[in-house]
């Protein structure tokens, strides 16, 4: 057994308490503590320090510390939720519009269009697919509900623009003019075309 000096023991006393010593050195220190009153006292005193300061009661916080912390965290959590809801409030409708627009474009690019019921009008372009429109028996165009140019109002039915387009209906040149292919081309005077068309149908021309 190695005999240790008191200085050697003090140098290692912290590692002894940590359990960070090889077995030989630990045994030598145990032997030293059995015979040296001062080193035994240093060991117990140091152990006492660690026990006391490691006790939760040694940590004192200012009065109301927990409540103030909780309130601040709650405010932060609410702000984070608001931040997300603000984003989501925008994101949801924007995403929905993107999906609808994309869906109509995809549908119109993939679907085989039915032959147009009217040879006068142009096919619809960029009409929102889920837009509710009105068609009537015997007519060839679809309208916004309440349009003056709806034929046979007692036989009208409501459907989506997508369904109307698939069935070969074309947009009314008056109420749906902004969706006409020709609207962008600007080569045909739309008012005239509309009047001529509806005038030919005998349902409310402009008296031209």
């Amino acid at each position: 057994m190695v005999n240790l000096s008191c200085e050697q023991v003090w140098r290692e006393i912290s590692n002894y308490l940590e359990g960070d010593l090889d077995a030989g050195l630990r045994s030598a220190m145990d032997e030293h503590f059995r015979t040296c009153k001062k080193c035994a006292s240093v060991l117990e005193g140091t152990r006492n320090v660690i026990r006391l300061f490691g006790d939760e009661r040694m940590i004192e916080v200012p009065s109301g510390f927990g409540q103030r912390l909780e309130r601040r965290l709650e405010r932060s959590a609410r702000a984070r939720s608001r931040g997300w809801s603000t984003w989501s409030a925008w994101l949801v409708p924007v995403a929905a519009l993107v999906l609808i627009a994309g869906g109509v474009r995809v549908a119109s690019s993939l679907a085989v269009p039915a032959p147009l019921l009217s040879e006068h009008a142009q096919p619809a372009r960029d009409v929102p697919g889920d837009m509710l429109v009105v068609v009537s028996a015997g007519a060839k165009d679809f309208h916004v509900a309440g349009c003056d140019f709806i034929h046979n109002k007692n036989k009208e039915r409501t459907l989506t623009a997508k369904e109307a387009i698939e069935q070969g209906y074309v947009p009314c040149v008056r109420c749906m003019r902004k969706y006409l292919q020709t609207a962008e081309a600007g080569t045909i005077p739309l008012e005239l075309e509309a009047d001529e068309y509806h005038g030919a149908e005998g349902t409310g021309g402009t008296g031209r």
Partner: protein
Amino acid sequence: MADPNLVLSNPALAGTSREQELIARVQRGEHELFYELVRPYERRVYAAALAILRNESDSEDVAQEAMLKALANIRQFRAEARFSTWLIQITVNEALMRRRRERKGMVEGIDDHRDDEGEYTPRDFADWREIPSEALERKEVRQKLAEALGSLDRKYREVFVLRDMEQLNIQETADTLGISAASVKTRLLRARLMLRDLLAGGWEQGWFSRLPFQKGAKPW
């Protein structure tokens, strides 16, 4: 292996499945649960800030800032680390940054980061007696201990607080303070021996001499 005689207090929630569940839920966006998650550690977070800043108001502010930072970065927490250690490390970083900011422009001596190489000779006390843990119920005892801790040089105090009060291990303490594990061990030894001398000296000075537990009575 740690000495089984050492008291290493851990909050009941630490490492439990409840804690893991809370961490996962907060990471998924249930931020309102964060306070429940950190409540067991709020005192330790404050103590870590106080060990560095030595000022109650600044320490509370830094403790709150550290918690907010932890919440903001909760997704970066990985389960292989101890949650309490992660919180303490964030707090120490915040406190060190605060101290550096406040010292900017101040004329102050260069910090002594060197470890004392010389041997420390513990004092010999004829009348050493153990202070029982029950004595901590008494405010004056806690105050005397806090004063003893406060009298240590900063480099000793910080290592001691992180290892012996915050229960970080040697390597975690070294990583948190940006020093080597060898330095942690050297400073820890010195801090523990100095505190032992201060407390033992306290007996001689009568700090604890009127405590009822000496007579076996426990008024608390």
